[in-house]
């Protein structure tokens, strides 16, 4: 599993070269720094505080999840932000992309549950869908607010 996590992390990092053309470099850094703690916070709350999800405590699994939490998931969310800020897409298309990205993250949770990395105690995939929908919405809201200030400072 760690090999998959490392490979997807490397692919995600390489995709930053393309993302640079869609989002300003400062946006890439700031949004990543904003999204990563939110993702980690949800992970900690679900596992340590609420005990809704149990995680396999194997070190290699833990490292794989850390790589996913810090690199892969935030960069996928950056791609989502690049998509919804695009002027070329209609609101309907942006909504469709929102749903697609939500399904992608829910699918990742499903895969982790299927390979028994996650054990759902009091949690369902529908809850995961809602959680990731909230995360994407918060990320989008932050993006619109940050871009407002960034546009004032850029020539």
């Amino acid at each position, binding site marked *: 599993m760690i090999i998959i996590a490392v490979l997807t992390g490397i692919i995600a990092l390489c995709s930053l070269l393309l993302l640079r053309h869609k989002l*300003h*470099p*400062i946006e890439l*850094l*700031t949004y*990543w*720094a*904003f999204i*990563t*703690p939110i993702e*980690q*916070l949800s*992970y*900690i*709350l679900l*596992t*340590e*505080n*609420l*005990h*809704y999800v149990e*995680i396999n*405590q*194997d*070190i290699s699994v*833990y490292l794989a999840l*850390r790589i996913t939490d*810090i690199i892969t998931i935030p960069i996928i969310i950056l791609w989502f932000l690049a998509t919804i800020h695009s002027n070329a897409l209609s609101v309907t298309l942006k909504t469709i992309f929102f749903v697609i990205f939500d399904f992608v993250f829910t699918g990742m949770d499903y895969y982790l549950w299927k390979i028994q990395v996650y054990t759902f105690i009091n949690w369902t995939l529908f809850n995961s869908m809602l959680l990731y929908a909230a995360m994407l919405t918060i990320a989008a809201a932050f993006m619109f607010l*940050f871009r407002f*200030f*960034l546009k004032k*400072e*850029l*020539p």
Partner: protein
Amino acid sequence: MSMIFFPPIKFDVNEWFFLFALLTWVPLFFLPKHFSPVSFVTIWVFNYCLGQTADYSIAFKPFDLYDINDRPELEYFDFLLYFCTYPPIAFYMLYIYDSWKPKKWKLSFLILAFAVVSMLLEWTSVKWLHVFTYKGWTILYSGFVYLVVYSLNIAVIRFLRKHLPRTVR
């Protein structure tokens, strides 16, 4: 028992430390304005991310090298710790860096000095204020972490300088 955020077991010295630590923001607002809103938000969010990532990586299972505040679970004050107490010292360091622009050994000295100050603050918070309870961690490890953190902060301010217009930093 499960909760989204746990309250402190008792509102005692470590919670008062947090409230006192909020005062470290005050001098920042009396210093001449140095960071634009974008730079300020980026630095703040970056340090929040660093602090939380480091703590979540090693303070919870499977490593569980230390506890923060009263409980092993996440409390309200733990969450606020990342927002309000980690960033100010980075701002002061970056303020000094951006004002004096030290290079080579002076820059190394600046990073080392702030790492030592951070270690002293952490040692105080462990020894007397019970903000952290070490279960396998030592202050020396924190020293290395602070060196990395402040070096990354220097990289971030240089990154911001490169990508923001000269008149607005």
